[in-house]
Every structure is written in C-alpha cells, then in structure tokens.
C-alpha cells in the first residue's frame, strides 16, 4: 500500500466551495507545494481554516492573489496586508477565532465532539451571541467544532503507509488538522519505507492520512526555496 500521489492529482480531491483546513503558523508547517497547485487551479469559493493567511504572495497569501478564497477562519490576519485589503474591499469574509479556540475546535472536529465550553473570550466581543453556561461557579461560552472537507497539511517525513513526523515547531496545527478533514493530504519532504520511522517518533498515525505528496521545495539555510 502506497499513499503517494502526484501533486497535480491532489486537486482531484478538492472542489469549488469546499472548506479546507490548512496547516501552518506563519509559513512554518505550511504545505507550499499543494498551495501552489491550488493557486494555479480554477477551484473557487474556498473557505480556508488556518491560523494566518501566510504572508503577502507566500503560502496561503498566493490563494488570496489568485482569487481562490471566499472566506478565511483563523486567529491572526494582520500580518498579511493583502488579507486586510481584501476584507476591506469586501472580497474576503473573515471569521476571527482565538488561537486556542481554533485549535480546540479542530481537535473536537476530529474527535467526533460537536462543541465545547471555554472561558476564553468571556467579556469580549468575540463572545457576542454565544451561549453561556456556568460550571462550578465559572462562566464559559459554547464554541462549535470545526471540520474540513479536505485537510492539507505539511510534515517532515511520511512512510508509505502515511505515518507522519514533523520538524520542530512546524507541527503546530498540522497534527490536529490531520484528524479533522474528510480527506487528508499530507505534503512531506521525504517518503520512507514502512519501518523506517520508529513508532516512538511517529506523531500522526497513518489512520488519519489518505494521500501523500512530495514537497517540490528544498530547504536551504533553514528556509524552503525553489529547487533548481
């Protein structure tokens, strides 16, 4: 069994109007190759769930430029001025979610939990219109779980079964998004034989991963660059 597919074939699993969970914190742990494929496609009206929208013209920022996006759900968009501009012009809907609530909502989505109560947001405008409930004398707000039609994530290595390991803080939202997509596509720097990853180091078990694609970028000086 081998889950490796061509990067261009990954688009067969994504359609207009889908909700995509996209891994990454800034550009770290972002599936750059898959995002390039999407930016070059005619797939439109995507809702993207991701902590940020990359940077101007980079990572998810490319999809903003190429017009694939309808809506972004995440915690921090001000680092990409294109996102701010698109929102001002009414070209992009934005739903702002505290980072911890975002992570937990995706975790719940992957765990078959419909929603959860949290103290984060109590007393802020982000709690407006949300159900409140008191547990042990403290007030919590209800947040709904988040699931995706497709998760596109980035890992360091996969084995052919789809077990994944990550590079340092590039794990960020990837591991939890691996659990919450109807279809999960992992972009990796290297694919190895089953048994080459030690069970002690595997972070994402293969049960969550449907397809694997190879990253076309290579790391030089600690940064991913176009391979020549």
């Amino acid at each position, binding site marked *: 069994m081998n889950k490796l597919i061509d990067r261009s074939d990954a688009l067969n699993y994504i359609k207009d109007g889908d909700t995509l969970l996209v891994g990454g*914190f800034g550009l*770290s742990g972002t599936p750059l190759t898959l995002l390039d494929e999407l930016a070059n496609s005619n797939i439109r009206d995507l809702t993207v769930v991701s902590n940020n929208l990359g940077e101007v013209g980079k990572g998810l920022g490319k999809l903003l430029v190429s017009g694939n996006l309808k809506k972004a759900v995440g*915690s921090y968009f001000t680092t990409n001025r294109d996102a701010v501009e698109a929102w001002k012009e009414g070209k992009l809907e934005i739903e702002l979610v*505290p980072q911890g609530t975002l992570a937990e909502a995706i975790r719940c989505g992957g765990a078959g939990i419909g929603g959860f109560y949290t103290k*984060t947001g109590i007393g802020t405008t982000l709690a407006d219109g949300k159900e409140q409930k008191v547990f042990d004398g403290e007030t919590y707000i209800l947040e709904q779980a988040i699931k995706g039609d497709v998760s596109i994530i980035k890992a360091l290595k996969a084995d052919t079964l789809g077990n994944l390991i990550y590079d340092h*803080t590039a794990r960020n*939202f990837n591991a939890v998004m691996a659990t919450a997509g109807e279809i999960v596509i992992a972009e990796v720097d290297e694919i190895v034989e089953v048994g080459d990853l030690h069970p002690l180091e595997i972070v994402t078990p293969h049960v969550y991963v449907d397809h694997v694609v190879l990253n076309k970028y290579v790391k030089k000086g*600690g*940064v991913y660059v176009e391979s020549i």
Partner: protein
Amino acid sequence: MLSQSERIKIAKRVAEELSEGQIVNLGVGIPTLIPDFLGDKKVFLQSENGLLGMGPTPDDENVNMDLISASKKPITMEKGASLFDSSDSFVMIRGGHIDVAVLGALQVDQYGEIANWAVPGKSILGVGGAIDLVAGAKRIIIACTLQAKDGKSKLVKKLTFPSSGTRRANILVTEHAVFKFTNTGTELIEILSDISMEKLKEITGVEFGYDNVKISSSKITK
C-alpha cells in the same frame, strides 16, 4: 517613542517578578527582552506555537525557520525542551498550567481588566493567543509604557478599547511605576523613575493607594 533603556528598565523589573522554575509565556515586544535579565534564575519559556524550553536566537548558520517563536523569529531549544502541537499548547495555556503570562497592553483599567488585542474603529483582524492567555494563565503581568504614543495613560478608570476578557491582570509594570490590582482597585507599589506622585496621578487620572510604595529612584521622596 520609548527609549531602549526604558524598555530594558521595564523588562528588568518584570524579571524580578519571576521565580525559579516557573513556566512563563512571553508576549511580543518588551516581554521578549526579559530572558536577558533573569541572571541565574531558571524559568521555562513556553511558546504557543508548540515549544516548552525556548532558548536564545541561533547563529545565522543554525537558523531553521521551522524552529521559531510565536513572533515567527528563529529560536533554539534548551536542554529538556519539548515540542507539541497547537492543541496541546493551548491545553497548557487554557488549562491553567502556565505560571505567568507577561503581556503588552493598550489599556488596563483600575481593577486590572486588560485591553490588548483591538483598537476601536480599526479593523479587528488579529487576536492570536492573547485572550487565551488572559483567560488561562495563573498570573498575569502587564509590561508596557505608562502612556500611549498620543500621551494618554494606558492605566485608565474604564476601558475604552475592547476588553480581552473579564479575567484581571495581577500587576502592571511601566517605565515610571509598578501597580498592583486588587478587588478594591489599584495600588502603587513602586516608583521606578523621578516622576512625582502628583504627575503620576495627573497622567493616569486613577485613584490609587500608595501606603506601601517603594521608591526606587534616588531623586524623589514619598
């Protein structure tokens, strides 16, 4: 604009508040200067993008942009560091496992309620982990200038900027003074510059107690 020496003064004073062995999350800006002033005191820095045991900036040749801080700057790992995903990271933050969060602020009210994520009238497009930390850290220290760029006090009677939550800060450290917050209001606990008590009252407009104030500047008396 605050001078670097004043930023350092704030960072040094906050460093005094931290204790050996604590788990600490540092926000962006002035809080990132604190590790330089801890001396022999060992604290463990948590970075919300998935690291406990954050070390200093690496040499250029050891930069890996997949080992970064929450400010997206390259970092290193200390011995004993651990890596985890965002959901585990916020279990630490929201579950009350972080001893101290040191955060910047736009405003703090007289009871310690914080505004640190949004400016009224401007687009609100970033919150990050700020309000998770406010809701979940065991102790909250605010490190910021006493006045905003327009000269207005950041310590205020009532917030005019959007609140970061009903959870209150424990102390506020500025370049001029350190304030403590209690259920009854603000208490001035230390003066760090040659500012006069009158001037401090004038700038803030907040009624604060000062029965046990420590004067750390040689130029003035109580």
